[in-house]
């Protein structure tokens, strides 16, 4: 049972344009969501997070939107840069627990000049 789903395995975007990565979840108990970024041969690194009490969180070029009724979140990168090319993982958890993150399968973003 896949509780966190990233249905697009890959995305290609031109430099300077917006990248939109999507994530759906099935468990309504999740109340905290995170995005991690992973380069080849490196571990995932934290990018941005959002609590379920918010619908938007912004950090520089990165914005995460949360639609609780649709159980959907998205990561927007504006403007996209070649250095953003990586695999992006969506993750979710119960804030009353202990950081047991449930990850999606990831979306590989390629930003080309």
């Amino acid at each position, binding site marked *: 049972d896949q509780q*966190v789903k*990233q249905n697009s*395995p890959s995305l290609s975007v031109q430099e300077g344009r917006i990248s939109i990565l999507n994530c759906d979840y099935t468990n309504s108990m999740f109340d*905290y969501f*995170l995005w*991690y970024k992973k380069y080849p*041969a*490196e*571990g*995932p*690194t*934290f990018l941005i*997070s959002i609590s379920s009490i918010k619908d938007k969180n912004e950090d520089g070029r990165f914005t995460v939107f949360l639609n609780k009724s649709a159980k959907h979140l998205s990561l927007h990168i504006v403007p996209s840069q070649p250095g953003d090319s990586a695999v992006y*993982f969506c*993750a979710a*958890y119960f*804030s009353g*627990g*202990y*950081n*047991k*993150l*449930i*990850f*999606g*399968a*990831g979306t590989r973003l390629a930003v080309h000049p």
Partner: protein
Amino acid sequence: GAGVSQTPSNKVTEKGKYVELRCDPISGHTALYWYRQSLGQGPEFLIYFQGTGAADDSGLPNDRFFAVRPEGSVSTLKIQRTERGDSAVYLCASSLTAGITGELFFGEGSRLTVL
């Protein structure tokens, strides 16, 4: 070093052999996690330690897998009688506490290949 350190970075073994993977977390981090990432998948939770004790080992796939953290710092993931299906990248992560931010700091992983 300042980050989470995992050794070995690569391990090739034969089916049926015993394997140990080591994780050295960030100094002072009390929470430690093991995840497994198979090809084309996201990291999958295996086990969580708070201090020396395993607070949740519900992700360990079977009794061939075992992990310890005897002094509350370094952890070792042990796999007995390895099978080809155990081939994956094993990721270790740590956090300062089991807090609410959810930010885990990951190591680069140990890639296990079982022939």
